[in-house]
């Protein structure tokens, strides 16, 4: 091999079902595998949330498989698994590993990722991690109880801390450690591909913002997952080798002194949140990139402030690493440290606001086409703003003393991380479906899906702000223990009904998706009249994307409504002499 890796990595199109669809090296197949994994996980996670909402609204209701109703321990196990599955298996995989795998190489003009074997390996390790995680449901004691943050010491001392804290918790740690390995492999691949395999003329400032977002997300993953891996190893040692990194001395539990000494439960919080805060940006950045991309395409206008968008994403990524303490204001940290974390956290509002105003600037005066992907991109912006504003409340130490661990936090992170990122995923599905499957999804069903979901998620999560302000703690199976909580029961009923409707609406999506794969209207090569490279290749793209040659790139990614030009868009691959004058 020479020092030049070479931009064209064409490998022979594989023959046979197994090499083509199962152990495939093709980034597009791997992308689809990731999306399928995320889709499956999303439905599991959603089903768990349905059960939790049932329990919250109607605590004593008997359900199939739950003859005595859902027990409090079972409720906590659902909280943990819902959060873990959604954060790791859905929000981390679908926007980044799924769509990124499929479209990053095509959008930069490459034939595949830089390391196809590593790519395949990272998918299969992710699947292994999912299997290990799911196994926690079926072992004795069931799934762990500590929430997706698995705070120590209760997560470190084993079965004595509760039924799911035995083998189930061990499986959780192993699954997450495996997931770290898979994400690190993916991150290395994404970064190397973006830097090394861009086609001729694709300078950094001509990259679509989607590519920038995937690239920056990969850098965050590279730096964050290594730390979670270390934390996971230590927790596993505590659980299996008898060490006490996270277990303090003289800890008494159910009248027994735990035979460990000297560790610090707060250490886990530091390590976890050093990963955990960057992780929330891993979930949201690809959605930000895609929202910018889609808003520009359907406003028929260039992205407002392209460079500012790139710098905003980069500074969000940087700041994301120095604000983890805002999750620990009530951990007994020095007020001075709390103040520093508070100021740094609020400073993230600046790049976030730059992005928001640039989105609005992109829409301003545009020739807006309200297609389904456009609606979801607008929904993304709406949810990002609604969820981000509550972050500024939580970022103040004094207010957070009260709001921490209440439903207010649940409202904040569901709007901004959960639902906004999911809207990003939906934007991607509706926008790229024609390219991936060569057919259009039904616009009518898409819009129905959008409106039900958009109104539904606000109906579920807005009231949580109010019960949070009224002091309702999170992770309680029911409010029967305290009179003031019982008075909030009607709100729970309202939110559960809203959840029921919203979840039902997702089956419209599932039907539309599956139906359109086989029965959808045939799609043109470029149905949205978009400018980036994927819209210049057949749908679905052939095995090596560009039939063995590198497409030369002549311009930036967002040339809409260029004055003096006949069409209202110019593809990135159109050379200057081919641009028709008006």
């Amino acid at each position, binding site marked *: *091999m*020479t*020092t*030049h*890796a*070479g*931009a064209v990595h064409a490998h022979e199109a594989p023959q046979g079902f197994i090499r083509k669809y199962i152990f495939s090296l093709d980034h597009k197949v791997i992308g689809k595998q990731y999306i399928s994994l995320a889709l499956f996980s999303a439905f599991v996670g959603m089903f768990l949330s349905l059960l939790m909402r049932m329990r919250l609204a109607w605590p004593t209701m008997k359900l199939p498989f739950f003859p005595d109703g859902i027990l409090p321990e079972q409720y906590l196990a659902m909280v943990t698994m819902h959060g873990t599955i959604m954060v790791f298996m859905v929000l981390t995989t679908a926007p980044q590993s799924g769509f990124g795998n499929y479209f990053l190489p095509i959008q930069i003009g490459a034939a595949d990722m*830089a*390391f196809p074997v*590593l790519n395949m390996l990272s998918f299969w390790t992710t699947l292994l991690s999912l299997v290990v995680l799911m196994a926690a449901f079926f072992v004795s004691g069931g799934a762990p109880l500590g929430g997706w943050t698995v705070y120590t010491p209760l997560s470190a001392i084993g079965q004595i801390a509760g039924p799911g804290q035995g083998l189930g918790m061990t499986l959780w740690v192993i699954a997450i450690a495996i997931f770290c390995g898979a994400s*690190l492999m993916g*991150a*290395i*691949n994404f*970064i*190397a*591909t973006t*830097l*090394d*395999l*861009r*086609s*001729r*003329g*694709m*300078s950094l400032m*001509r990259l679509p913002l989607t590519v920038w977002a995937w690239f920056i997300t990969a850098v965050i993953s*590279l*730096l964050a997952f*290594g*730390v979670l*891996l*270390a934390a996971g*190893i*230590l927790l596993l*040692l505590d659980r299996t*080798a*008898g*060490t*006490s*990194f996270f277990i303090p001395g003289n800890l008494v539990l159910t009248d027994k002194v735990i035979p*460990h*000494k*000297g560790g*610090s439960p707060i*250490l886990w919080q*530091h*390590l976890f949140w050093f990963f955990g805060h960057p992780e929330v940006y891993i979930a949201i950045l690809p959605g930000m990139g895609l929202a910018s991309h889609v808003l520009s395409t359907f406003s028929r206008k*260039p992205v407002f402030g*392209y*460079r500012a968008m790139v710098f905003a994403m980069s500074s969000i990524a940087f700041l994301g690493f120095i604000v983890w303490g805002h999750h620990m204001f009530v951990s007994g940290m020095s007020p001075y440290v709390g103040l520093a974390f508070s100021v740094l956290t609020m400073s993230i509002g600046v790049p976030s606001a730059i992005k928001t105003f640039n989105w609005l600037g992109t829409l301003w005066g545009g020739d807006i086409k309200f297609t389904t992907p456009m609606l979801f991109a607008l929904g993304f912006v709406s949810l990002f703003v609604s969820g981000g504003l509550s972050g500024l409340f939580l970022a103040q130490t004094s207010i957070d003393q009260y709001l921490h661990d209440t439903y207010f936090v649940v409202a904040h992170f569901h709007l901004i991380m959960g639902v906004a990122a999911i809207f990003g995923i939906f934007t991607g599905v509706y926008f790229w479906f024609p390219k991936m499957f060569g057919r259009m999804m039904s616009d009518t069903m898409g819009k129905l899906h959008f409106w039900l979901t958009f109104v539904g998620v606000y109906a579920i999560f807005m009231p949580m702000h109010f019960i949070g302000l009224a002091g309702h703690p999170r992770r309680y199976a029911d409010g029967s223990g305290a009179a003031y909580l019982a008075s909030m029961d009607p709100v729970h009923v309202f939110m559960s009904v809203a959840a029921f409707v919203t979840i039902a609406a997702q089956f419209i999506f599932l039907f539309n998706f599956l139906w359109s794969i086989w029965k959808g209207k045939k799609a043109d090569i470029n149905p949205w009249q978009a400018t980036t490279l994927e819209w210049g290749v057949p749908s679905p793209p052939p095995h090596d994307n560009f039939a063995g040659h*590198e497409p030369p*790139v002549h*311009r*930036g990614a*967002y*040339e809409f409504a*260029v*004055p003096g030009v006949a069409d209202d868009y110019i593809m990135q691959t159109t050379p*200057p002499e081919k641009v028709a004058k008006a």
Partner: protein
Amino acid sequence: MSDSHADVLRESPWTGGGSPYSIGSKKLGMWLFIVSDTLTFAALLLTYSYCRLTNPNWPKPFPIFNAIVFTTIMTVVLLGSSLTMVMGVAAAHRGNRASTVKWMLATMLGGAIFCGLHATEWMHLIHDGLTPFSNKYGGSPLFGATFFGITGLHMTHVAIGVIYLGIVATGFGRGKFSAEDVEVSGLYWHFVDLVWMFVFPMIYLMSVKY
């Protein structure tokens, strides 16, 4: 500035098909791996520092004093293996296959000796009552936990490195791998040495009785 319109007529400064940073993807990939692994070790060493600073009964000095001579020898062996690796990479770039393989074998030998000495040290410590969860010498048992956790992960890296170098040396000897592959494996090896250069002062030297 207007990013889109101004670009229409401007040619890109870079028109090559190869990589713009004249660094192959494999080498870049190894650098990125090193970055992420640095973070993992950094987290562990921070854990060690945190435990050491917050524990009033941290065992200082190190329980076995003569071990420091022993560990110094280990350190010299490991550093020496970095030198032989440099020679191997240089030979590979000159295209001298036989010499490359020889230097790489020397490097692997250094790595293997390091692991052997390290394992001996472990056995002694365990025999004397220092384990991940107990410390017969008095003081916090977390000393053993961090000690075995960090040096164990490092030793795993060295052992994997010996195997990795073996594969690359064989492949290079047979003409299947390129000089760049040797260089990339060298990057890994130097990184593992460099980690030790943090472990050695932080865990051993800072605990010696003078």
